[in-house]
């Protein structure tokens, strides 16, 4: 489904600030794979996400989705295959537009946007049913501006908007990191349910080790722009936080350094 082949990216090439953001990354996702991504600060996790989604273009290597080489396809065209939820709850929704208008924008993912009305009786019914599945009452507030919602509600809405049109790939970039524990738990539960129900091919960056182990069928660990460990389905079943940290020290020769990491 998703193929990342020897992809590299340098930041500030040719200057004193040159930094290896990603080096020779190799990653293959089968349909329905749910891969969690962990790693220390500056490991290249977000760069990997940005390269897959097309926000950045790789300096070398190829990316293909469902057999299509998308390495040079611009972000807005690639969006037809990729749903994304950002870390910042403000980033995934338009605050001055209503819930149903935000849903209408998401509903048209990858389709031509013309002169037909975005919110009609028919689409409103679809949006209400979808919102109802979140179980937080947003279906009763469809005319409310999204800017009035709490961070947790906005992130739940972002998640729904990113997934309900069933994109080929779902990218989650620490999408629960900015929420308080109770709301983070809610969004995590919703993520799990939605990914399982729609069988979405998912890549999720997280700082929560316990979450990284509990969720998904595969796990990758990154450090200094490299993917240093890939844990496949069989081995992931009996992975623990201690063993994961041990593996990290063994491979990288240092302790996991991340001020935000949550061991769970």
């Amino acid at each position, binding site marked *: 489904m998703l193929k990342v082949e020897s992809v590299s990216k340098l930041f500030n090439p040719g200057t004193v600030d040159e930094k290896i953001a990603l080096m020779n990354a190799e990653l293959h996702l089968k349909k329905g794979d749910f891969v969690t991504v962990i790693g220390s600060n500056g490991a290249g996790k977000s760069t990997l996400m940005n390269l897959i989604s097309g926000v950045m273009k790789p300096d070398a290597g190829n990316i293909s989705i469902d057999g299509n080489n998308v390495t040079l396809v611009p*972000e807005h065209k690639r969006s037809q295959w990729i749903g994304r939820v950002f870390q910042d709850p403000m*980033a995934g929704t*338009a*605050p001055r537009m209503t819930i149903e208008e935000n849903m209408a*924008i998401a509903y048209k993912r*990858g389709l031509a*946007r013309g002169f037909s009305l975005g919110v009609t009786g028919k689409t409103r019914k679809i949006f209400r049913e979808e919102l109802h599945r979140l179980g937080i009452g947003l279906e009763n507030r469809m005319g409310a501006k999204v800017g009035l919602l709490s961070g947790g509600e906005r992130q739940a809405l972002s998640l729904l908007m990113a997934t309900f049109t069933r994109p080929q790939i779902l990218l989650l970039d620490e999408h629960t990191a900015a929420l308080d524990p109770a709301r983070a738990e809610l969004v995590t539960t919703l993520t799990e349910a939605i990914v399982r129900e729609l069988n979405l091919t998912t890549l999720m960056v997280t700082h929560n080790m316990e979450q990284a182990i509990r969720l998904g069928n595969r796990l990758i660990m990154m450090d200094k722009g490299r993917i240093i460990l890939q844990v496949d389905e069989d081995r992931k079943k009996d992975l623990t936080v201690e063993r994961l940290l041990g593996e990290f020290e063994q491979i990288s020769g240092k302790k996991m350094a991340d001020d935000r990491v949550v061991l769970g």
Partner: protein
Amino acid sequence: MLVSLTGALESGLLYALMALGVFITFRILDFPDLTVDGSFTTGGAIAAVMTISGVSPWIALLCAFLGGALAGLCTGLLHTKGKINGLLSGIIMMIALYSINLRILGKPNVSLRNADNIFNGIDPIIAGLLFAIIIKVGLDWFFKTDLGMSLRGTGDNNRMIRSFGANTDRTIIIGVSLSNALVAGSGALIAFSSNAANATMGVGIIVAGLASVIIGEAIFGAKTIFRATMAIVLGAIIYRLIYAIALRVGWLDASDMKLITSIIIIGALIIPTARKAMKSKAVAKRRTEEVMNSIHGINGGDR
């Protein structure tokens, strides 16, 4: 007095199209477009010159809209494809249009006195009202379509709308073109109603447009697109009323009006921000006291 008030109503309605254009760039797209100072004149010039040469004034008006759209297209391309800062793109086009407008006019001032006019046989106030309502309703509808919503999303959160597959370069170009089409149309209507077009008729028009937007939103609110477009039409009329009244003050010249407009805008921008800051400070103080009291209350109960 009555004559100047009906005059203000008439020009307010004709300028309303321009204010709606400014609303599209400044409010919907969050793109501070200064092309309007040039494109307003472009509209007036195209309409005047075509009408004088014998073309139907209605076709001339249509061409004025198209000419404005073309100017907006250039600004949009400079900003999105040329990666030039938005403000600068507008300023560059505004300056370029000054020369272009003189080319279109052929001389600094063109009179429409002996030419056909769209306001022949129709009261300009009624015609202006019709134009304003048609454009207002049209925009209300447009901003509810998929394309219109992608324009709103571009101004509101462009990162988000790209992640859903909208091409924000395209939405910006469409929005700026539409905005300048309305501005140029407004310039054409003003040329018809004043029976003249000249090379400087657009100077400072951006400030008048902004003032109309800000006054309208401050008085009538802008919670929904429907409310906002109505507020801006009314804001344009109120602005022209203020203008008419200020002109009747003995010691003020017509040339002082740009200064007065700037002062109105400064006031309208500063007062709401200051009021908001004061209000949130008051709320914070009250809530802190309430929280403190509730904690003391619990402690008191324990003792």
